[in-house]
């Protein structure tokens, strides 16, 4: 039997190596020595005994530990192989009976593109429209792309020009939102849907020349900081959903408004006029949200930028202000599990190479002016 082995092995800094397994689209971030042990394990010339002997001879690891390491790697490889039996994404969908009538019809304009969206219900509309409401136009029956969104039993469907491109359970509606976000981005920018490398759970800011990606756990203040930067004249390229394209390795504009939670309303009001924006109530916990549209005129903005910096942000009112270099392995711990990364082998390699070239930082702040000044410094390099 052929052993499963990592397809790509690359150093991301002096101490850590990233391994990628194409069977499962899993990434492993590990120390240099562990990477060597995994490679030794996957070497077809080494069985258990020779593996343990090798560890004893070259790394002074006793038999007990050598065996434990062997079993750890065996367990991990088994997990990796098991995952290979699952498909990553569904690309074909069974034929579904579409609604005979959509009661809600909206038209939107993005650059030179007109998009028609038909919603089957108000609830469905509430999941998609508020974020892009600022692009609404009066309908004139002409459009470049159409999307239809409806519910059948417990499934939500997304059609693009009549073809089903997404199907998710209602409880997983955020995956349908994600699929819609990528399809919309793809249509607006005239791209090939198969050439998106990743959609990062990140907000991205631009100065008109390049971009900086902001990551962090939910509630860390990514969107609030983005809105503050927008108030200072920066361009929000993406809020919450940042797509990376293969051909030019640029981050592309996702034209949604920035979602701001109630806790930040008062603070932001002194920087941006958000008072008159509608407050939406989401979910059973009744979270109040405002969608803040871009200040800059959309059609004058470039559609894509290179990105050389990733900043992990953490708003922390008790722990002062600091911008430090963040180890790349720590950035990956947040970035990878929060994002979709294409399982395509070529894309995985391009993602790794792109990431290796980016500078990683951690920004802890309680003072907004401090945070803004640090972004200014990063942009001015």
């Amino acid at each position: 039997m052929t052993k499963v082995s990592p397809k790509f092995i690359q150093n991301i800094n002096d101490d850590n190596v990233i391994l990628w397994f194409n069977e499962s689209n899993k990434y492993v971030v590990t120390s240099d020595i562990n990477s060597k042990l995994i490679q030794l394990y996957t070497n077809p010339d080494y069985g258990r005994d020779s593996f343990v002997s090798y560890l004893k001879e070259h790394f002074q690891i006793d038999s007990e530990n050598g065996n434990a390491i062997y079993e750890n790697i065996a367990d991990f490889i088994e997990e990796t192989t098991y995952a290979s039996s699952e498909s990553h994404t569904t690309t074909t969908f069974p034929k579904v009976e579409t609604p005979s009538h959509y009661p809600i019809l909206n038209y939107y304009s993005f650059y030179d593109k007109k998009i028609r969206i038909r919603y089957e219900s108000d609830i469905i509309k509430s999941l998609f429209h508020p974020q892009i409401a600022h692009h609404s136009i009066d309908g004139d029956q002409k459009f470049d792309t159409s999307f239809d969104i409806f519910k059948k039993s417990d499934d939500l469907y997304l059609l693009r020009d009549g073809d089903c491109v997404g199907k998710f359970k209602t409880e997983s509606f955020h995956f349908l939102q994600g699929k819609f976000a990528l399809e919309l981005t793809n249509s607006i920018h005239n791209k090939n849907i198969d050439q998106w490398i990743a959609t990062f759970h990140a907000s991205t800011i631009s100065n008109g020349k390049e971009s900086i990606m902001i990551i962090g756990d939910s509630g860390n203040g990514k969107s609030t900081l983005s809105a503050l930067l927008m108030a200072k004249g920066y361009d929000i390229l993406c809020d919450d959903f940042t797509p990376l394209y293969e051909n030019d390795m640029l981050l592309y504009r996702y034209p949604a408004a920035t979602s701001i939670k109630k806790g930040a309303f008062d603070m932001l009001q002194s920087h941006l006029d958000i008072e008159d924006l509608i407050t939406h109530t989401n979910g059973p916990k009744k979270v109040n949200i405002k969608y803040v549209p871009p200040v800059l005129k959309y059609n004058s903005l470039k559609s894509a930028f290179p990105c050389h910096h990733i900043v992990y942000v953490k708003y922390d009112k008790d722990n002062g202000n600091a911008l430090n270099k963040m180890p790349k392995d720590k950035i990956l711990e947040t970035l990878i599990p929060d994002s979709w990364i294409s399982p395509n082998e070529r894309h995985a390699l391009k993602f790794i190479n792109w990431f290796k070239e980016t500078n990683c930082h951690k920004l802890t702040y309680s003072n907004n002016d401090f945070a803004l000044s640090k972004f200014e410094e990063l942009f001015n390099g």
Partner: protein
Amino acid sequence: MNSKMKNTNKQDQITRKEALKKMGKYAALTAIGTFIVLNPKKAQATSPPDPGGNPFD
């Protein structure tokens, strides 16, 4: 096996902290140095403002 969809949902509900906790089972490897397995999401997603809430319930 249940539907693929169900599996996907379950996978994506594992948070990063839980993933780190799971790494405890690779104790022999983590004793030597960093060893963390990272799974990207299996489909594009946006972050729901109120995770876990289903507006259709």
